[in-house]
């Protein structure tokens, strides 16, 4: 008891100063999370009291719900293909910009612009126009003599249009790469040049290894956000995740279950599964980082 009293006496001012954040956290994060964890064990239609059903939601997800499996597959593809491509592209542009072209500031800003409104509804709508049956992409293809197809309505290509949309939002990663590239001491390049290293050798032996901490950071951030992708699919597929569930992101299916089908308990369970998946993948990346991330010193 004395220990508690001492703790309180010594720290209460600190907690008081912390209170704005603390209240926000408890009300806006901790409580909703706890409630959703509870809901995940219930059947809850948002209008009647939740009905405890134990692990049924989780069991159904992994045994009976084929649409859930489809959404897992779509999301996995999106992350596995989209994130590496996006990071490579961001790195490529960052390398271009780093070479000291005139007006670097200007280009850096320009290339960052897509990321600024990348996740927005307007861009997703634009994408719909671009890749539609009579969209810009097809009319360009027609100019070079290729008859296009309906990219968004074809289950084989619809997801890739969304991946391209993700790659197009490379700006945030690019800016971080650019900052990372500037951290690499110039004398390393100079001495390697004296030793006769070509441009490719410089890239593979100096730039890439010294950039791994940045790649690591970007990778974690992009993987987490890719798992939570929602807007592009919601708009481009008109909320359906079609055609043939080929753009049914995990979060889109979660949304459908919760807000369209009134299965808020099931949606909560899905949210927790997603949290575990992201935590697991992030942990894997962290564990593997010892093998491929190099810190100077």
């Amino acid at each position, binding site marked *: 008891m004395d220990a508690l*009293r001492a703790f*309180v*006496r010594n720290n*209460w001012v600190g*907690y*008081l100063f912390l*209170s704005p954040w603390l*209240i926000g956290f*408890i*009300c806006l994060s901790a*409580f909703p999370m706890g409630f959703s964890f509870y809901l995940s064990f219930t059947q809850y*239609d*948002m*209008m*009647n009291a939740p009905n405890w059903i134990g692990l049924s939601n989780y069991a159904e997800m992994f045994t*009976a719900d084929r*649409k859930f499996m489809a959404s897992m597959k779509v999301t996995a593809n999106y992350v596995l293909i989209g994130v590496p491509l996006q990071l490579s592209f961001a790195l490529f542009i960052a390398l271009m910009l780093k070479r000291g072209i005139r007006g670097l500031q200007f280009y850096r800003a320009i290339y960052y612009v897509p990321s600024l409104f990348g996740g927005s509804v307007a861009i997703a709508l634009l994408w719909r126009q671009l890749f*539609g*049956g009579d969209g810009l992409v097809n009319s360009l293809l027609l100019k070079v003599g290729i008859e296009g*197809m*309906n990219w*968004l*309505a*074809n*289950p084989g290509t619809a997801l890739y249009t969304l991946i391209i949309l993700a790659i197009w939002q490379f700006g945030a990663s690019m800016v971080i790469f650019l900052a990372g590239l500037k951290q690499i001491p110039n004398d390393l390049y100079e001495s390697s040049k004296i030793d006769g290293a070509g441009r490719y050798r410089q890239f593979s032996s100096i730039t890439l290894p010294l950039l791994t901490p940045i790649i690591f950071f970007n990778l974690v951030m992009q993987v987490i956000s890719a798992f939570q992708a929602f807007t592009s699919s919601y708009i481009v*597929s*008109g*909320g*359906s995740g*079609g*055609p*043939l*569930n080929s753009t049914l992101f995990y979060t889109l299916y979660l949304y*459908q279950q919760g*807000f*369209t*089908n*009134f299965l*808020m308990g099931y949606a909560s369970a899905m949210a927790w599964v997603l949290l575990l998946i992201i935590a697991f993948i992030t942990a894997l990346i962290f564990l593997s980082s010892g093998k491929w991330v190099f810190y100077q010193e």
Partner: protein
Amino acid sequence: MKNIRGLLFGFMALLMIITTACSGSNNAPPANNANAADTSNTVSEQPAKEDVPAPAAEGDAEIRFTWWGDTKRHEIYNAIADLFEKENPNIKIVREFGSWNDYWDKLATQTAGGNAPDVVGMHATQVANYAQRGALLDLTQYVESGVINLDDFPDAVKEVGKLNDQTVMVAQGVTMTGIFYNKGVLEKLGVEPPDFNWTYDEFAAKAKEVKDKFNAKDSWGSNDLSSDLTSVMVYARQKGKNLFNDDGSLGVTKEDMVWWFSFWDKLRKDGITPDAETRAQYATVPLEQSLFVLGKVGFTAVPYNQIPNYQNFIKEGEVHALRRPTDPEGQNGEFIEGAYLSISKSSKHPEAAAKFINFFVNNEEAVKIFKIEQGALGSTKANEIVLPTLDPAQQRAVTAIQDTLEIAGKLPLPPAGQGQVAQALTDVGESMAFGQLTPEQAAEEFVTNAAAILNKK
């Protein structure tokens, strides 16, 4: 000791901040609603209110009214609400509206949060989600006391708004889904318009004729209706069944659905209805970009009340409507649909809300503004008032509705899982279109999935 007291005080204060901050407030005005501009109407009522010498304080009420629609409909609804406020200066109407999809998402969330608007635009396909879950107020007492006057409503129309003998919604407009065609397009192709009564075979033959005369890769005889829930409901009724039984279970068999999917599968394979990709592309486009408005399909299924909406976007040719294709050995499949008004159970001013609903469906000036926005009006008297003010497209809509009303029946109020069954139908139909399922497999999968969804409730 003194320190401890100060400390306790500090924590108490903190606790109070937390509890008040967490509890939020349910009775705060919905200032965070997207349609802030809309409240300007109500603000402008303020000075008028001061002119009235102290109205009875207990009659003062602020009710929230929500609906779905496009810009044109918002103007109409706003005008009616303004008119009501003018006649009832002690009732203020706060308006919230959005497009069809956003509307239902928002309403679900608001209802879940115990923050549903008082007067809620309701639809026959959605009412189950709310009424079956007890989110709507039983209006019987207001109907009996005459606050909501349904004397001029035909029995069939009153019946549709009932669930377990409780009136849960009042018709703004009744309509049915028929088959639309553009007379101008058919004339240009040299195709004789079909009879109002036609069979599935005649429908298929007509659609084929249109397709052949179009003679173009990107034009078709009819839209693919295999995944259209309303069409399946009509089909089930023609078989003397209902897609959903009274008890909420699935009312059709696999055999029924095999015929259904085979019919549409053949039309698609013959090129009479659009291919899978075209179908997917146009599945979610707005009305003005639909294949029918673009003049690329001959026939499509739409509620009759939308004839004027379609005519708005179609510059060449008149939009006409027919009843659904019939089964010569079967029964009439048509049933009454339409838009309705409900009061949510959480309403704090149900009396004022009921008064507003009555105004909306009965007041002469109000119905003159509303016309047939949502179909033929519920009240026959109101219909007579409105009829002379209609343009030709609107008159065609009313004629089609009245012709079909004679053969249309009442659907059992659908079960809460209806939305999911509709989704299952779309999924299965799409898989069939993309060649992943045969009609037999599609039927099997639909019946299995739908039964699973409905049994869970």
